[in-house]
């Protein structure tokens, strides 16, 4: 379960209400979240590194909230607040729209064929006339990090790059080049480096070194240029310093490069839906085009609103309640799944913020959450079944009692042991011993599983 750290006072301000810790914990629980911890930056540093290091840290109260792993829309304050407000009927879920640019052509990202060998896909979008405050900026960066860790599988499937559009000039080219041929000034550095140099530079960087293996051994590395040859980024490692985002940035160009296109689209949709709130035209996103080597052009972000039809009876039947179609529609709408009755059925609209809904049963689950699990009457499965013991276990139970009665003590050993335990220490060769071998043990203690079943010893 991913954990999101949210500043309590900002959260309450955005919610327009102050809660006690208990009340907020209760609200989280109702919504399907868990308030894991109430702490502060100071407390965290104190616990991990000692009081002296924590002296200057912030005292501001942080809520650590556990969020289901597939709810990418709840990974930042903006999404959490929006979800909770709609859940409490304080807000209607916003409608996210993709617009064409006010003037001129959409930004273009051209993919060349060299990327096919290393990172073939890309998506892009623009956030126009956005206003950042320090909090919003921090949240923006943090969401990217959370997505990287989560759906992007540590940047291996998708890597996100965000750039100040006013510092660069489209059309942009996404290509791949030999490491020696890539040279730019990366984020937070004062001079230029080649990609080869960066690989060694970042080997000691506690954060970035984990991502180096994704491209390290490839003949070419991915790189994005603008029309003037300025490097936007070398995904998945680092962005260029030139296009870095600051509090003053008004227009953002977002690009996601990927090995999994489906996930890249989801990631892009999440980022833009969450932060378009701060654009001059709220909840609007300016489209961008991505051109593939074969000439196909795709427009992003997709921001698809998918429609699904189901019957109210299906929901009632699966949950164990009996609500009318209208009531069910209200429940679902509170979960950001806008619904209305359509003939005998219910039509549900699944917004781009809910890629976790892949089957009607996910919709049913949301209906149950909105109804309140504790409000669902508890019933018992009606079918009468006759129990049976697994014969081997039945015999085991009989034997162990009588062995204890005979004076033996039951011992419980590990199934896993080291190779020496079953070979050398018994004077045998490992190749002669019948055992199952593990390929990725964390320690030498768990290398093999001997061929006989668990022994109870005296």
């Amino acid at each position, binding site marked *: 379960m991913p954990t999101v750290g949210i500043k309590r006072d900002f959260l309450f301000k955005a919610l327009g209400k102050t809660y006690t810790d208990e009340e907020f914990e209760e609200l989280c629980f109702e919504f399907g979240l868990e308030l894991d911890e109430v702490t502060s930056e100071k407390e965290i540093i104190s616990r991990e590194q000692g009081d002296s290091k924590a002296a200057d840290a912030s005292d501001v109260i942080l809520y650590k909230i556990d969020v289901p792993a597939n709810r990418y829309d709840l990974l930042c304050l903006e999404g959490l607040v929006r979800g909770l407000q709609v859940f409490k009927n304080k807000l209607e879920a916003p409608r996210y729209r993709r617009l064409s640019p006010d003037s001129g052509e959409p930004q273009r990202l051209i993919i060349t064929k060299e990327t096919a060998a290393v990172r073939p896909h890309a998506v892009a979008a623009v956030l126009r006339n956005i206003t950042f405050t320090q909090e919003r900026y921090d949240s923006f960066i943090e969401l990217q990090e959370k997505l990287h860790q989560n759906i992007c*599988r540590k940047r291996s*499937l998708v890597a996100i790059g965000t750039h100040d559009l006013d510092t660069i000039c489209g059309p942009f080219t996404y290509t791949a080049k030999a490491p020696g041929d890539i040279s730019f000034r990366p984020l937070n550095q004062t001079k230029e480096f080649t990609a080869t140099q960066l690989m060694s530079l970042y080997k000691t960087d506690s954060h970035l070194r984990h991502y180096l293996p994704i491209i390290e051994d490839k003949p070419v590395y991915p790189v994005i240029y603008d029309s003037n040859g300025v490097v936007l980024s070398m995904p998945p490692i680092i962005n260029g310093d030139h296009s870095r985002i600051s509090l003053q940035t008004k227009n953002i160009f977002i690009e996601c490069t990927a090995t*999994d296109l*489906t996930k890249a689209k989801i990631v892009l949709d999440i980022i833009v839906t969450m932060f378009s709130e701060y654009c001059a035209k709220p909840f609007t996103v300016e489209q961008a085009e991505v051109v593939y080597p074969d000439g196909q052009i795709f427009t992003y972000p997709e921001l698809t609103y998918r429609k699904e039809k189901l019957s109210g009876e299906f929901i009632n*039947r*699966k*949950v*164990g*309640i009996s609500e009318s179609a209208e009531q069910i529609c209200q429940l679902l709408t509170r979960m950001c799944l806008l619904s209305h009755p359509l003939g005998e059925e219910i039509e549900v609209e699944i917004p781009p913020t809910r890629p976790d809904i*892949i*089957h*009607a*049963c996910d919709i049913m689950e949301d209906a*149950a959450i909105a109804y309140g*699990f504790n409000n*669902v*009457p*508890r*019933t*018992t*499965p*009606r*079918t*009468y*079944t*006759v*129990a*049976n*013991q*697994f014969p*081997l*276990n039945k015999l085991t*139970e009989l034997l*162990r*009692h009588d*062995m*204890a*009665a*005979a*004076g*033996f*003590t*039951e*011992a*419980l*050993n*590990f*199934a*896993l042991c080291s190779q020496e335990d079953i070979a050398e220490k018994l004077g045998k060769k490992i190749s002669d011993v019948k055992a*199952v*071998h*593990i*390929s*990725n*043990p*964390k320690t030498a203690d*768990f290398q093999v*599983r001997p061929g006989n*079943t668990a022994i109870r010893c005296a």
Partner: protein
Amino acid sequence: MADTGVVETLLQRIEKVDGGVDSLEVAASLGVDHQVIVGAVKSLQALGDIISAELRSSKHWELTEEGSEIAEQGSHEARVFSSIPLEGLLQAELMKLSFGKIGFSKAMSNKWIRLDKSHEGGPRIFRTVESIKDQVRERLLLVKQGNAAQLDEKEKNELKKRKLLAEVTVKSYWITKGNSFSTTVTKQETDLTPEMITTGSWKEKKFKQYNFEAMGVAPDCGHLHPLMKVRTQFRQIFLEMGFCEMPTNNYVESSFWNFDSLFQPQQHPARDQHDTFFLSDPPLTRGFPPEYLERVKKVHSEGGYGSQGYNYDWKIEEAQKNILRTHTTAVSARMLYKLAQQKFTPVKYFSIDRVFRNETLDATHLAEFNQIEGVVADYGLTLGDLMGVLHQFFTKLGLKKWVEVGNSGVFRPEMLLPMGLPEDVSVIAWGLSLERPTMIKYGINNIRELVGHKVNLQMVYDSPICRLDS
């Protein structure tokens, strides 16, 4: 009964004095170990009011083992001094001696020696004075001879700090005459024999009192492991609720049954090298029901059965990989598939068996543990039914708060429909670990004290019966 000679001598001593005697003094004057006198006192106390013994404690100073060694051979620093000849000694040579390291720094601080770091041939130590007085040894000898009082507090504490002296509390008895004091001790009888009864001699005998406070001899017996005792209770609960036990006697499983058939995508973090034990031998399984395999592949990569699917390239090579099962749900999947191949009947299944996770180990997590799992498959099951079953199950356990310890849910259609189960059949399931409730019940904090070969067997001997509902 303690040595009668000592007992009688003691009684005689007490008779002679007006007040009382100190057990330590008596021991010293008789030339016996203090414990012998203590034994005599205890024996007399068991006989009634013959003596009255008051426990006293006094402190005195004693030499530690190291202190005794120094009293005999001299302090480390003195020995260092005496081992340095006129022409000096190489520091490296000195360090080889047992008293070298400690003695060196002390001798330096006493200014008995000096170190010439730049001497030819290496750093060399020389004497700075002609002779020294080994004060430490002298002080220790004083204490050894019983004259600790001659040293002042500061000197004693200094030696205590160097662990050469220790303050020892000595318990002794102040023995005085009791109400029924007498110098003769009649032996008490411990057995009532048939002869005593027939002759009537028992009327004149004094019998030793029963000591109901004494611990009896523990009988030799066997013991069952507490984790297994809890397991037995959980099995009982399931059987009482009409659940059938699943055959879980296979630790090795294929990724297909452990993950893919349960609709867990192939890029899911749980299938990582970091969380799962993969096998190098035997590495792969190949025999899967072919049509079922195709349906699983399709639902992952394209969707179907009302699902969007995950939209990725599903690879058979991933599914073939053998692992040590990460949950017993793999067995539940096999059972449900088997059920779907015949005419479906509602079932309730359970299992309690070992699973393996390649995760970070800490006080409450091991690489292997036992998972408890319950499954109900029936037409038209609801979330209300799931909550009802959970409630019944946990009520039988007797603790409502354990619901937070487990996980529960409804199996997805993407898992059930490819198996061929009828559309209106729902399957609910829940599980928890066996170790957690056991550790709570038996008050054990570290899982390594409960499971594995490093466990203290005394814990197994001492563990009480498992009563879950109280």
